[in-house]
C-alpha cells in the first residue's frame, strides 16, 4: 500500500527513501547484501504464495459456480514444504554466519576509542592519547519547538563529532554511565548497546572521508531522541593534525584551572556550560521538572553552603537521575556551573566557587 503511494507520488526525493543505504565500509556493504538477499527471497516466496491465494480467491468462488473439492491432506506436500524452506534457510545462514564472524573480529585495531553513553550525550575518549570530550546535540530549542525553521541536519548535529582517520581499523569500547544506550551509525553498520558496568566491543574501517550521522537507539529516558552520534572521517594527515591540536587544547584547558577568575567570567562560562550539561533536566529556567528533576531556582542546596552544592554536583545523588559530574566536567566548568546556579534566577547567594575550590574538594575526597 505504501509502495503504491510511493509510486503514485513518483518522487525520488530523499524524503521518500524506502531502503537501507549500502554504507561506506566493507562490513556495511556485506550487511546490505544480506539484507537485499533475504528481502528478495521473501519477495519470491511472497509472489508464489500470494499469487496462489489470489488466483484461488478469483477462480474458486461460489459465485462462479465452483464446487468445493474434498482433499484435505497430503504427507508428500507437507514434507516438501518443510524441507524446501529449510534448505533455503541453510543457504541463507551461510553468508550470514560469515559476515557475523567478520563483525565480531575486533583484533588488530590501530586506534581504540572508548565511547560512553550518558543521559543524553556521548563521551569519546581516545585511549592512550590523552584526548577526551563530550558530544552534545547542538540543534537549538527554538527549532525543536518550531519557533525557527529546521536546519538540514536537524537533531543529527553535535558540537564535537567523533573524529576518526580513514583506512584505519578503529575499535570502539562501548559502555554507559547511567542507563543503557545504544551507539549506532547506519553508514558503518555499527550498532552496539552501551551498558553501564560492562564494555562492549565493535570496530570499523572507513574508506572515504566524510560525515556520518546516527542516533542513540536504546530508549534511555526523556531525551533519548536528542542524543545523536556524528562521526567525522578525516584523511590520516588531517586526523593527526586534529589530534595534535586537541592535545594542545587540552593542555590549555588545564592552564585555565590556575587562572584567577572573576565573577562575570564564571557566570558567563557557567551559563553556557549549564545549558549543555544541566538544562536538559533542570531546564534553562532552573525550574526543573519536579518531582523527577527538582528545581534549582530557590533550592535549599543552591542557596545553602557552597560545600553541599559542590558535593551534589561532583558526586551526584545515588538512586536518582542526578549523575556525578566530578569526573565528567573540568574543574573550570564545575566551578562556573555551580557559581552560575548560586547566582542565577534570583538565587543571588552572592558567593563564587572557583576551579581551585573544586580541586581542593576533589583532593579532600581522596
Amino acid at each position, binding site marked *: 500500500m505504501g509502495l503504491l503511494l510511493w509510486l503514485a507520488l513518483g518522487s525520488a526525493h530523499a524524503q521518500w527513501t524506502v*531502503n537501507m543505504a549500502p554504507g561506506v565500509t566493507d562490513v556495511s556493504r556485506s550487511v546490505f547484501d544480506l539484507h537485499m538477499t533475504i528481502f528478495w527471497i521473501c519477495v519470491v516466496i511472497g509472489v508464489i504464495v500470494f499469487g496462489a491465494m489470489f488466483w*484461488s480467491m478469483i477462480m474458486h*468462488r461460489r459465485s462462479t459456480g465452483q464446487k468445493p473439492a474434498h482433499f*484435505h*491432506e497430503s504427507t508428500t506436500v507437507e514434507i516438501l*514444504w518443510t524441507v524446501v524452506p529449510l534448505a533455503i534457510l541453510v543457504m541463507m545462514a551461510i553468508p550470514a554466519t560469515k559476515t557475523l564472524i567478520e563483525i565480531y573480529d575486533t583484533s588488530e585495531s590501530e586506534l581504540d576509542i572508548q565511547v560512553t553513553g550518558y543521559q543524553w550525550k556521548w563521551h569519546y575518549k581516545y585511549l592512550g592519547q590523552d584526548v577526551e570530550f563530550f558530544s552534545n546535540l547542538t540543534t537549538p530549542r527554538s527549532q*525543536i519547538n518550531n519557533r525557527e525553521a529546521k536546519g538540514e541536519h536537524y537533531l543529527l548535529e553535535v558540537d564535537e563529532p567523533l573524529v576518526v582517520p580513514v583506512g584505519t581499523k578503529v575499535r570502539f569500547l562501548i559502555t554507559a554511565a547511567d542507563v543503557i544506550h545504544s551507539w549506532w551509525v547506519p553508514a558503518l553498520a555499527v550498532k552496539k548497546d552501551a551498558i*553501564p558496568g560492562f564494555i562492549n566491543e565493535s570496530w570499523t574501517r572507513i574508506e572515504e572521508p566524510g560525515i556520518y550521522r546516527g542516533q542513540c537507539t536504546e*530508549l534511555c529516558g526523556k531525551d533519548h531522541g536528542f542524543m545523536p552520534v556524528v562521526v567525522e572521517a578525516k584523511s590520516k594527515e588531517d586526523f593527526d593534525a586534529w589530534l595534535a591540536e586537541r592535545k594542545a587544547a587540552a593542555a590549555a584547558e588545564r592552564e585555565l584551572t590556575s587562572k584567577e577568575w572573576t565573577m562575570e567570567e564564571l557566570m558567563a562560562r557557567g551559563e553556557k556550560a549549564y545549558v549543555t550539561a544541566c538544562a536538559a533536566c533542570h531546564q534553562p529556567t532552573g525550574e526543573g521538572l519536579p518531582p523527577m528533576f527538582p528545581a534549582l531556582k530557590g533550592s535549599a542546596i543552591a542557596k545553602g553552603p557552597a560545600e553541599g552544592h559542590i558535593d551534589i554536583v561532583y558526586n551526584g545523588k545515588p538512586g536518582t537521575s542526578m549523575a556525578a559530574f566530578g569526573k565528567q566536567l573540568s574543574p573550570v566548568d564545575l566551578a562556573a556551573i555551580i557559581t552560575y546556579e548560586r547566582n542565577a534566577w534570583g538565587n543571588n547567594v552572592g558567593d563564587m566557587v572557583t576551579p581551585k575550590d573544586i580541586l581542593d574538594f576533589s583532593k579532600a575526597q581522596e
Partner: protein
Amino acid sequence: MSAVIDHGHTDHHHGPAKGLMRWVLTTNHKDIGTMYLWFSFCMFLLGGSMAMVIRAELFQPGLQIVQPEFFNQMTTMHGLIMVFGAVMPAFVGLANWMIPLMIGAPDMALPRMNNFSFWLLPAAFGLLISTLFMEGGGPNFGWTFYAPLSTTYGPESTTFFIFAIHLMGISSIMGAINVVATILNLRAPGMTLMKMPLFVWTWLITAFLLIAVMPVLAGCVTMMLMDIHFGTSFFNAAGGGDPVLFQHVFWFFGHPEVYIMILPAFGAVSSIIPAFARKPLFGYTSMVYATGAIAFLSFIVWAHHMFTVGIPLTGELFFMYATMLIAVPTGVKVFNWASTMWQGSMTFEAPMLFSVAFVILFTIGGFSGLMLAIAPADFQYHDTYFVVAHFHYVLVPGAIFGIFASAYYWLPKWTGHMYDETLAKLHFWMSFIGMNLAFFPMHFVGLAGMPRRIPDYNMMFANFNMVSSIGAFMFGATQLLFLFIVIKCIRGGKPAPAKPWDGAEGLEWTVPSPAPYHTFSTPPEVK
C-alpha cells in the same frame, strides 16, 4: 462433571441473576467471556487513543502536542495496555465463550476461579492507569521496561506498575490453568484430542506457554521491586548485578508471550477459512504439530531481541539459527491455509475477509521477522521503525484481525442476531487500508534510519511519518464503527439460525442462537 454448575437452586432451569450482581458474582463461562471481551475492547480503545497521541506528535517533525516525558509514557502505556489489556483478555474471552461450546462441556472446569481471574483485571488496569495521574507520571521506560531505566532511574509510580503486572500475571495464570483443566477433563465423549477444533488445540498450547512464562515475568518484576526498595542489586552493575540479566529474564518471558498473542488467532482462522471455503482444513495433523513446534521454539530464541547487547559469537549464531527455524512451522501453517482455500467454493463475508487479510498480512510480518532473524542485518534493523513495522504487522492484522474475524464469525451465536454485513465489510476495508497506510511506511523510515521511541525526528523521515499518522487516524476512527456494529447486532437484526454459516463445522453450531445460558448440561455424543 455437570454437577460443577449446580448453584444450589431448587429451580433447575434458572437463567442469569438479575441486575449488576449477575456480572459481579457470575460463574457462567458465557457471562465471563462477554465481560472479558468488553473489557478488552475498552482497553483497545484506551490503548488506541494513546497511539493516536503518539501519531499526532509524530505527524510532523518538531515537538507540537506533547513533551518527551509524556510521549514516553504514551508509548509505554500503549504497549502495556494493548498486550496485557486488549489482546490477551480478548483471547481469554473467546476461550471462555467458545472452548466449552466446542468440546461439548457445560462450563469451564473451575468457574469460581474464572470469575476471580476476570475481576483481577479491572483492579490491575485501574492501578496501572492511575499511575498516569501520579506525581512524576506513569511508567516511561517502554513496555519492555529495561533496567536500570526502570529501576534506579524510574519514576516513583514504578511500584504501582509492578503490582499491576503481578495482578495481570495471576489473572493470566489462573485463566490458563482453567483452560487446561477444561480441555483435558471436560471433553464430550468421543471428542478425542485429535478431533478437537484447532482453536481448542492452539489455546491448549497457549495455556501451557502462559503457565510456563508468566511466573518468569513475575520473578522479573519482583527482582525490580527488590532493587528499588530493598537494596538488592540484581540489575545494578554498581552492586555486582547485571542489567543484561534483566533482558534475558524479560525476553525469556517476552518471546513466548508474542506467540501467546498469536496462536489462538491461528486456531480461530483455522476454523473460519474452511467454513467459508466450504472445504475441510488442509493438513489438520500438521497444523497441530506445527503449533507445538512453534511453541517449543519460542523458548529457545529469546536472545534474538538482544543481538546488540554483546552476547558472544556462538550465542549469537545459536539464536540466529534457532530463530530462522521458526519460519519452517510458520510456513507450514500458511501453506496449509492457502491449500485449504485452493479449489474451495469461497464466499467473502466479514469473518473470511479478516481471515484472508490475516494470512497475507501476517505473512508479511513473518517475512520481516525472517529478515530480523539474520543477526548481521539485525544490527541495522534493531530498535528502528523497521521493528515497529514488523511487530505491528504480526499483531494488528495478526492478533487483532484474528479477533475481529472471530467476533464476526461467532457474533450470531452470541447475540442471536446477524450483524450488518455491509457495515462489517466497510469496517474491514477501512481497517485494512488504514492499517497498511499506518504500518507499511514504517518499514521505509526504519530502513532509512529512524530509531523507535523518539518523539521527534529529522525531516528526511517526515513524509512517511505523515502518511503513517493519517493511516493510524483512519484505523483508529474505524474501530468506533466496530463498536456501533456490535451494539446494533446485540440490539437487533435478522434472527440467526443455529448454524448461520453453511460451511461451518463444530459443536457450537448444534446449540440454538443465541446460545442458551446453560449448554451441554448433558454431554453430546461425538462420532
